[in-house]
Each structure stands twice: as structure tokens, then as C-alpha cells.
């Protein structure tokens, strides 16, 4: 009964790499060190699989499905390739190659989560570090608009608030922990200080903190629901820390202000670096969304929303982003890889997906697979196939293969290679 050690978990951007997984009869029977999400996903891995390649819901041979997919993509005028954040980098590279070949648009799920973070970065830059630097050094940690207790369960113990490291041997008691959110979350119990900010008030609060750090006074009693004294004290604490880190999530990127919020945070952190060391780190959700951005960037220069219709890459979020391309009724065919946009995109975009010929590559059944013309089952990266994934902080880690995929089922990258061959034929 094989037991795999130091397994990398492909279920969130933390990419914890210390799992122990027991496989029996090609089935995962035991998971050690995983969080609740991870354990449940590993143990239920065999459920809900797509069993066969399908065209219009009818089982077909793989070759037939590949042929149909190639036909759809070849005859489309504005094909969209989307998803990619829950597969390995080899598949991402192939998807870009295919997009280039058919003159299509390739986008990944960053466009609906940390797209604003990237836009802000492209305007101002960023000060960041790997998670181990926080583990080893941070004596002040702020979680802003994110709730790792629910979304990145082991983040706190492995990388941040609770972790013990080189200069933080006391772990939690060596740090001051702040959480900022629009509603009280369980982070309140973890934090030394919880700030409830008015909905839509993040930008203002960040700007107030920045003003104070820059030495200006505050002549109001409160900003966005946070009392003046608290702001003054927090600003002072930030300046006096030895190493400060702000983690932020969709609460900041997807609330009113979006990339403006992130710009305010970047500015605050840049200013703090005149006093001490400070970093800002996005909490990326899907386990390889960072990889999707990384590979797309080295191959095309741009992280997402890349259009090849003119033969060279062009980048314009809001125009070439999947949601917009679909909602405008512009995309006339779609290839979805390891993602479920029919379930997650806004109604108008999802509806368009059902109208046009859609192809989906996924190990599992999903809303998207129900509305797709062509469904091709693939091996799950990190369980049934190897490959690279990039952790939320950009560290590349090799995913392991723990078991064989179902008979005849290939990894995403191989299916994409077959489609490319067919398109070139």
C-alpha cells in the first residue's frame, strides 16, 4: 500500500508540500497533514468523474472529441481559451501555443480575482517576499479583506501568524496580528486588533493610514468606521515594527475601488519602507493561478487577457478578459481548461458560454461540462499527473503523481497537444 510523503496539495494557493497520502487500489484512502478542505478533496477525488469523452452528451472516442474540438476552434472567428489556474504549467504553455495558433484570446481566472492587483502592480510596482520571509521575520501581520481560516486554512500555522521561524521562535506571541474586514469574521479571534471597516471604505482607511505614516495629522474622529486613535496607533505600530506584512484578498480587490484599493495599499507599503521593512502579499486562491500568470507572462509578456487575433500578443483587461468577451457576445467558441466558468461567471457571460460551441477539459463533471458541446476528461494534475505549480508567492513546486488516471485519460497538456496537431493538420 504505497504511502507518498512530502506530497504537494493542489487545492489552494498555499501549496502545502508536507502531506502524506496513502493510496490503496488506485484510490486515496488516507491523508495526513492536510487541512479539512484538502483531506476532503483528496478522499473524494474518485467521485463525480467525467467517464468518457462526450460530444453533445454522447460518449465518443478521444480521437473524435479531439477532432471536433479542433474543428470548432479552427472555424471560430473569436475563440476564447479560459481557465488554467487549476492545472499544471505544461498545460498552460500548450494553451497559449494553441491560442496563438488559432488567433484566439487566452485568459485565466486571475481576471476575476486578483486582476486588479496586477493592474495596480503595473501602475506602481509592489514590495513583496516569499512566505518563508514572513515566517522568519514578521513581527506585525495584517490580514486585509481575507480570511485564511476559511480559504487558506494552513496559512496561519505554516507561513504567518502562528508560524515559528528564524527570528520568531516564539511564534504567535512574537507577533502583533491585525485583521481588517467589512464584517466580523473568525479572524477576530486570531487577531490582537480587529478593525471593522465600512463597506467600500478600504481606500479611505488605507489613505488615512498612509497620511499618518507620512506625518500628517487626522482632523476627523473616524475614517470608514475606524476611530482616529486606533488609526494613529496602528500607523505608529507599523512604523515601529521590524518587519511588517499585509496579506490581502478579494475583500480588497473585488470591493468598491478595486485596483485603486490595491494602489493605496502599495503606496502605504512603499512609504513604510522608509521606516522599516514592509511587504504586501496577495492571497491567491486557485492553486496555480500564480503559475497561469507566470507562464503567460514569460511567453507573451502579459499575465492574462491576451489576444492573438493579429498574430502578436495584445493585452487589454476589460476587453480581452473572458467575462467581457463573453458578455459582449463576441466570443464565438470557447475552450475551458480546469475551470467552471458556467458556475462562477456573471449570468450574461455564462449564458453566452451555453450559446456557443464550448469545449471543456476537466477531470470532473461541472456546470460547464453540462453546457459544453465537447467534454474531454483529463488526468488531475497533482494526483494523476506531474507538473509545475507556482505558490501564491511565486515559488515553483513540482506536483506529484500518486496514481494512474482512469484508463485512456490523458493529462491536460497531452490533450492540448493532440488538439494542436489536429488544428495544424
Amino acid at each position: 500500500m504505497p504511502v507518498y510523503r512530502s506530497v504537494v496539495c493542489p487545492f489552494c494557493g498555499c501549496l502545502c508540500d508536507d502531506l502524506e497520502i496513502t493510496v490503496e487500489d488506485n484510490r486515496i484512502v488516507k491523508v495526513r497533514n492536510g487541512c479539512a478542505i484538502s483531506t476532503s478533496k483528496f478522499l473524494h477525488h474518485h467521485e463525480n468523474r467525467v467517464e468518457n469523452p462526450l460530444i453533445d452528451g454522447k460518449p465518443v472516442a478521444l480521437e473524435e472529441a479531439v477532432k471536433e474540438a479542433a474543428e470548432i476552434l479552427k472555424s471560430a472567428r473569436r475563440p476564447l481559451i479560459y481557465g488554467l489556474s487549476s492545472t499544471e504549467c505544461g498545460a498552460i504553455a500548450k494553451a497559449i501555443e494553441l491560442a496563438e495558433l488559432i488567433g484566439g484570446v487566452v485568459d485565466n481566472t486571475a481576471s476575476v480575482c486578483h486582476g486588479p492587483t496586477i493592474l495596480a502592480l503595473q501602475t506602481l510596482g509592489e514590495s513583496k517576499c516569499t512566505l518563508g520571509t514572513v515566517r522568519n521575520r514578521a513581527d506585525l501581520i495584517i490580514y486585509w479583506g481575507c480570511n485564511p481560516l476559511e480559504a487558506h486554512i494552513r496559512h496561519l500555522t505554516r507561513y504567518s501568524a502562528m508560524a515559528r521561524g528564524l527570528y520568531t521562535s516564539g511564534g504567535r506571541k512574537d507577533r502583533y496580528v491585525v485583521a481588517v474586514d467589512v464584517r466580523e469574521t473568525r479572524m477576530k479571534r486570531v487577531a490582537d486588533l480587529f478593525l471593522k471597516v465600512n463597506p467600500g471604505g478600504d481606500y479611505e482607511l488605507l489613505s488615512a493610514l498612509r497620511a499618518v505614516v507620512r506625518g500628517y495629522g487626522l482632523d476627523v474622529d473616524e475614517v470608514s468606521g475606524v476611530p482616529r486613535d486606533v488609526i494613529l496607533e496602528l500607523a505608529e505600530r507599523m512604523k515601529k515594527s521590524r518587519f511588517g506584512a499585509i496579506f490581502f484578498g478579494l475583500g480588497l480587490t473585488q470591493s468598491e475601488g478595486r485596483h485603486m484599493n490595491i494602489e493605496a495599499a502599495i503606496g502605504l507599503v512603499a512609504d513604510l519602507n522608509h521606516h522599516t521593512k514592509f511587504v504586501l502579499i496577495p492571497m491567491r486562491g486557485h492553486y496555480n493561478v500564480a503559475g497561469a500568470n507566470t507562464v503567460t507572462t514569460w511567453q507573451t509578456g502579459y499575465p492574462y487577457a491576451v489576444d492573438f487575433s493579429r498574430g502578436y500578443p495584445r493585452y487589454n483587461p476589460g476587453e480581452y478578459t473572458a467575462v467581457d468577451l463573453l458578455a459582449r457576445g463576441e466570443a464565438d467558441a470557447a475552450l475551458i481548461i480546469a475551470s467552471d466558468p458556467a458556475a462562477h461567471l456573471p449570468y450574461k457571460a455564462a449564458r453566452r458560454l451555453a450559446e456557443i460551441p464550448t469545449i471543456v477539459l476537466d477531470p470532473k463533471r461541472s456546470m460547464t461540462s453540462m453546457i459544453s458541446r465537447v467534454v474531454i476528461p483529463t488526468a488531475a494534475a497533482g494526483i494523476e499527473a506531474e507538473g509545475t505549480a507556482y505558490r501564491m508567492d511565486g515559488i515553483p513546486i513540482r506536483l506529484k503523481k500518486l496514481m494512474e488516471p482512469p484508463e485512456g485519460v490523458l493529462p491536460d497538456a497531452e490533450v492540448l497537444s493532440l488538439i494542436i496537431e489536429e488544428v495544424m493538420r
Partner: protein
Amino acid sequence: MNLIIKGGYVYDPINKVNGEKMDIYIKDGKIVEELPEHKAKVIDASGMVVMPGGVDLHSHIAGSKINLGRLLRPEDHRKDPVPRTRVTRAGVGYSCPSTYIAGYRYAQMGYTTVMEPAMPPLGARHVHEELNDTPIVDKSAYPLFGNNYFVLKYVREGDLEMLKAFIAWLMRATRGYAIKIVNPGGVESWKWGKNVDGLDDTVEGFDVTPRQIITSLARANEELGLPHTIHLHCNNLGVPGNYQTTLETMRAVEDVKPKEGRENTLHIVHCQFNALAGDSWATLRSGAPEIAKYVNSHRHVTLDLGQVIFTDTTTMTGDGPWQFRLYNLTGNKWVNSDVEMEAGAGVVPYTFRKKNPVNAIQWAIGLELALLIYDPWRVYMTTDHPNGGPFTFYPKVIAWLMSRKARTDTMLEIHRAAMRKTTLADIYREYDFYEIAITTRAAPAKVLGLGEKGHLGPGADGDVAIYDINPTEWRPSMYREVEKAFSRAKYTIKGGEIVVVDGEVVSTPLGKTYWVDVEIPEDLEGELMKDLEEGFRNYYTISLSNYPVEDAYLPVQRRVEVVGWR
């Protein structure tokens, strides 16, 4: 395919061939003595320059740093979109080219070997993934050592054997080629927002000095007998007056005994940025003459230029505190990225302007270094791509080196500080084709210890560049012709395959990745693993067993075996 390159003027300095008309034969990817004509494709190179393929020992083309630059700069890409062709992939160019485009453009200039000089070990897979998407050229990457926790620990403990064992281990774990050191100690201090200000400052949190780090690593490097020397980005980069730090650094390793068979023990990278005299930006002047004087009388130092180009570019180094300084000087966008236990990096866009006195002086310093150091075997042409400017400007640098008129014409357009604060205008030396072949291929290949590169003798790799310029008719006043010829090779041949014709890429084989493998004595390795296990468990965020780069990341590899312990 077998090839005969017929009738060209051949410049092969390693074999002392200086512009002689001769034929070059390539069989199965290697240069051979001779071949019967009916068994080969013949390339007519008459009236043209034939050189070994170019070798760049320092160019940031792959990994997290350049990719942050790409991510940061859509406005840079929009200046230079590159469409797909029948044989090549699409992408973008200019200062942060996408990987495919970087490979093509090097080949188009006749370059066939390029080294990525700053690989954060934790990001090694990323570097190799990008190198695998960089077609045509052979390559390698240098892991960063100068601020690594284990290096600092063994230096502090004075344990040279453990330091050597760690170097050997990390080279294998990252599939690296040479020891890169960036602002030794300074990058570690930067993790607390601080820096070091010279060789004898103490590194925050460690009881060691930059001097100790440099000399220990140099000693370990030579005792192990690695193919290249330490590859050092000095302390105080970009600080007026820093030429003194650079001189002190060179002196610091004077008594390090070089590996058998060579005299050099230290390579100083992009020396231009470390050759500033004066005590402020206002009093800035060139420190190149002092550096050249030292280098001319000491055999243990080699350096590359880091030549400045007047254009918009993107600076990126493993030197976090310097990039923060540059951000404060310019107010441009700023990326900082610290890597646990090992390294850091920063990225800041920058425009070198003709009318800016500092930039004009920097431009002149690079050329002064190339021209005042007599021995072209020890000074290599680079722009520290993309720090001083994109590598695609190399032909311009070649023109400046070969033609005083080219330099004068530029000097007349730029700030007068170049005339007043440097000696460039007084220098009449002009490189000839032979010296260009030395500084752009023969010498870098030699200093890297790449025996099969940089020359056209039997056994060498079949990497050849053919430039459409007749050296017997060329005069320095015709510098635009030389610039044009070196921009678009008539032919580039890589491993015996024709990859460029008339400046256009015609095929895109995947080059090999060099890495250095040193076997560690068993007892030493056992002791090292104990330290590593403890360090990884307590301070890293990935498991020791998931750290080393797998073979899957090196589809075409060339392992260079080194016997480190006898």
C-alpha cells in the same frame, strides 16, 4: 547535415586565427579538420567575417526577476510586438523580451550561448522552465550564494569544507553553473530594510563581513575547481565613489590561489555601475582609469562592461537595497521581492538620457573600461541586459568599440559631462575584428571554462556566426556598416544546424543547459544533510525533498563533472 563554410575571413582568437581566409567544416554538430565537398552543404562566405557563435556570460533572460520586469511593463512590450511566423512563435521584445523572442534575437545577432546570471535557488525551476522556452541558444544559470543563510553560517563558523560541500550540493540541487554573489551581506541586511556600506561592515544578524563572504566563496570556488570563478556584483553598486569599494574587493582576493591552469579568481560584473568616482551625484566622475590601471597590473581579475545605452530600459538586480535607492532617485515604479533564506531582487524601469550628466558619464565609463584595459581576454562586452540597455544594442556597442568616430558622434550629442568628467575623448584605441571576436565570444567562453565554445578548432561545437561585412575594406569611419552587419547575421549556425539566414530565423532547435556536478565526500555530505534538514524544517517553507530540481526540467542537459576533492 554536414556543412562547409567556404572562403570567409575567419576570426578565431583561441586558435590564433586572425582574419585568414579559410574554410570551416562541421560534421554531426562539431567542427572537424576537413570534409569532402560532395558530402556537405557549402555556404559561400567569401568577403564576409566568420566567427565562433557569440557567448554572453551575463544577461538576465530567465526567471522570476525578468518575469517581474515583463509583468511590470506592458508599456514596454507595446513598443515592440512580434508576430508569429511559419517557424517562430509570437511574443514581445524591447527591454523585457518574452522567452522565445530573446532566443531568436540572440541568434539573429550570431549569438549561440547565453548565461542567466542570477538564479534564486528557490526559484530554480522557474529559471529552467523559462530557459526551456528560450530556443536555439545554449545556456546555464548561476545560483545566488552571497546572502544565503548556509553560506553566511559556514563563513561565520570559518568552516571552508562545509562551505564547499554546500556549494556542490546547491549547484546540483538547482542545476546551476557558477557562484553568483550579489551585494554580499547587503541583501541579507535588506530583509531588515538595511544595507552594508562596504567590505568591513557587519551583516545584520550575522557576525560576518562582506569581505569574509567574498574571500571565503572565492577560496571555496578555486579549491573546488569550478569551471568559472566567482561572479560578483560588488557592494555599493550605483553609489558615487564606489570605484574604491571595487578596488578594495579586487585587492581582497589577491592572495586566493587560483585553480590549476588559470590565473583569475574573480569576475566583476557590469563594472560600469561600480566604477563611479566623486562623492556625490553633483561631483560624479569616472573611476574607470583607476580600475583599468589595477586590472592592467593584476592578472586575477576579469570583468564585464554593463555598457549604458541611451534608451528606455528596465533595471533588475538581486540587489534589493540598490533598487530601492533607484526607486527613490527616480520615483518610477518599484518592485521588491525577498526570497527566504537566500536572496532578494528588485526591478525599476529606467531611461538613460543623453542630456543627463550622470548617464553621459556612465556611458563613457563602460567604454573607457573596454578601451583602457589592454587585455581584451579579461574584459567582456555586455550591457548587463537589460540593466544598461537591451542586448539587442550590442551591435551599437561593437561600433563604439571599433570606431572612435562612432564615439565622437555620440559624444557630440550627449551631455558635456562625458567630455569633462571622463577620459574617453582622449582615447584613440579602436578594437579590430580580432579583438571583437575575443571580447564577445572567445574570452567569455574561456573564462566560463567552456572548452567547446568560443572557437572553431576541431572538437568545438558547430556554432558559427557569419557577418556580411568585408574586413579588408572596412574602415572605422564606416561604423554604421559594422553595426548593421552585427545586427543581422548573414548566417548563424548552431550545433551544425543553420538557424538564421539573412537575419531571419529559419529553424529553432532547443539548446542545451550546462550545469556543474561536483561529487561530495560521503562523510561531509552526511554532515551537510543534517544541517540542511534542520534548517529546512525550521526556517524554509518547502520540504528539503521537494527542493532539488528534477531532471524533467532539463530536457537537453550537459553535465559538467568536476572533481572537487582529491
